[in-house]
């Protein structure tokens, strides 16, 4: 039996591996640890996990000369650094060193795989938020027309925060609001937890904030993955105050943007948005004020005309009533002053007729005309039986003649 020294054995392994393996392989792995050394070499621990159970592990190295090439390209394509927990597709060759053992010599990293992987994770998170029914919760809140108490989550030193404050405080209309900064880390792995803590502080604050503004920007475009983080986005979506984002994405929207009440590109545009709402509100108030003024004037004018008309009508009507009453009185007055005389005259006329009639029957008037009255035995002679020898008495106007009947025919 041949005996190998350890070195001999390791050299054998190295020779077999070198002989049997391809020059390089494309391998999918998760970055378990990453460490950029001062000498420019990047050391990684690559793992494959099933949940938290490590199924495979290997060391990997990106030599400084390679790292200088692939790192800027990777960052420009993915917008993110290589970091722990990231799944990557690497092109590597196996290096076996008789002293240091096995290591993967990384020659290239496929940026598209990481982009696709991140997009897949993002879709998973969106689906989870939708399945939990919280995706649109913040959007269903009503944002005040004029936001006067604002909680700002940002990094105090961020250029974006400064842009926001300048834009808001120097607005040409002189609008003011209470602007409170809740400082948080806005990038990297700690960002998500830091922002969630700020949300808790805002929620517990004595101030009744009307909106929360989440801003960053003005700095690196990298490490925006935290805005796709499930925990952060679930908090933002369910936050009871409308959230406005101005995270400064150039590439695409983060999930934080999707769950926010309102998403805007930059901190400056968030300030412009809030100022513009205030301006719109003021314009509406001014318009309404003008409308009220016009309507009131019109109403007063109409009512004045109506009252004038009624005033004219009652005056006219009362005048007519008075005139009619006066006319009726005049008529009655005329009747009273003339009618009694008429009645008396009629009575007088009637008396006069009767007097004349009576006069006409006075026998004295007949005697005057030459008629006479004959009486027998004191009675007027009409159709009494008379015989010769009867004594008659005849009365004329001036005399009374006595005679004796001789003959009767």
């Amino acid at each position: 039996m041949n005996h190998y020294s350890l070195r001999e054995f390791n050299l054998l392994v190295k020779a077999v591996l070198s002989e049997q393996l391809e020059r390089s392989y494309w391998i999918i792995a998760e970055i378990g640890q990453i460490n950029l050394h001062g000498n420019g070499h990047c050391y990684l621990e690559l793992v494959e996990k099933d949940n938290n159970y490590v199924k495979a592990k290997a060391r990997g190295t990106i030599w400084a000369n390679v790292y200088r090439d692939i790192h800027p390209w990777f960052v420009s394509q993915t917008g993110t650094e290589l970091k722990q927990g990231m799944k990557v597709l690497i092109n590597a060759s196996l290096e076996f060193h008789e002293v240091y053992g096995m290591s993967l010599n990384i020659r290239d990293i496929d940026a598209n795989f990481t982009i696709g992987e991140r997009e897949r994770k993002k879709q998973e998170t969106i689906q989870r938020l939708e399945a939990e029914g919280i995706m649109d919760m913040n959007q269903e809140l009503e944002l005040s027309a004029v936001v006067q108490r604002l909680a700002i989550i940002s990094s105090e030193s961020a250029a974006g925060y400064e842009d926001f404050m300048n834009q808001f405080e120097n607005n040409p209309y002189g609008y003011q609001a209470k602007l409170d900064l809740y400082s948080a880390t806005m990038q990297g792995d700690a960002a998500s937890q830091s922002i969630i803590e700020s949300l808790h502080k805002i929620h517990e604050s004595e101030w009744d904030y009307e909106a929360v503004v989440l801003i960053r920007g003005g700095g690196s475009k990298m490490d925006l993955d935290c805005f796709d983080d499930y925990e952060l986005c679930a908090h933002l979506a369910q936050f009871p105050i409308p959230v406005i984002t101005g995270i400064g994405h150039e590439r695409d929207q983060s999930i934080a943007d999707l769950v926010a009440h309102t998403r805007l590109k930059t901190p400056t545009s968030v300030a412009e948005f809030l100022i513009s709402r205030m301006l719109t509100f003021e314009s509406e108030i001014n318009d309404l004020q003008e409308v009220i003024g016009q309507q009131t004037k019109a109403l007063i004018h109409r009512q004045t005309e109506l009252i004038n008309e009624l005033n004219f009508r009652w005056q006219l009507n009362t005048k007519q009533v008075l005139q009619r009453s006066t006319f009726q009185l005049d008529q009655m007055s005329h009747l009273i002053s003339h009618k009694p005389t008429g009645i008396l005259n009629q009575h007088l006329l009637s008396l006069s007729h009767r007097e004349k009639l009576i006069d006409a029957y006075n026998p004295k008037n007949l005697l005057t005309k030459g008629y006479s009255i004959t009486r027998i035995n004191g009675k007027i002679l009409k159709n009494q039986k008379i015989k010769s020898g009867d004594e008659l008495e005849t009365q004329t106007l001036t005399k009374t003649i006595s005679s004796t009947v001789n003959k009767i025919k």
Partner: protein
Amino acid sequence: MTKKKLSYQTAYDELKTICEQLESEEVDVDQITDLVKRANELVKYCQDRLRGIEKDLTAVSGN
């Protein structure tokens, strides 16, 4: 006139009745003097009321 304050309407109605009596010519001649006397009183009263109202209206409307 009676001491009790007359209303225009009562005075007017009474006056109207006297006029109707006179118009019908069935009036008792002995009453004519009294009727005419009463009627003249009523006419004067009614005229005064109307003039008073007219004056009040002018004052109220400020014209």
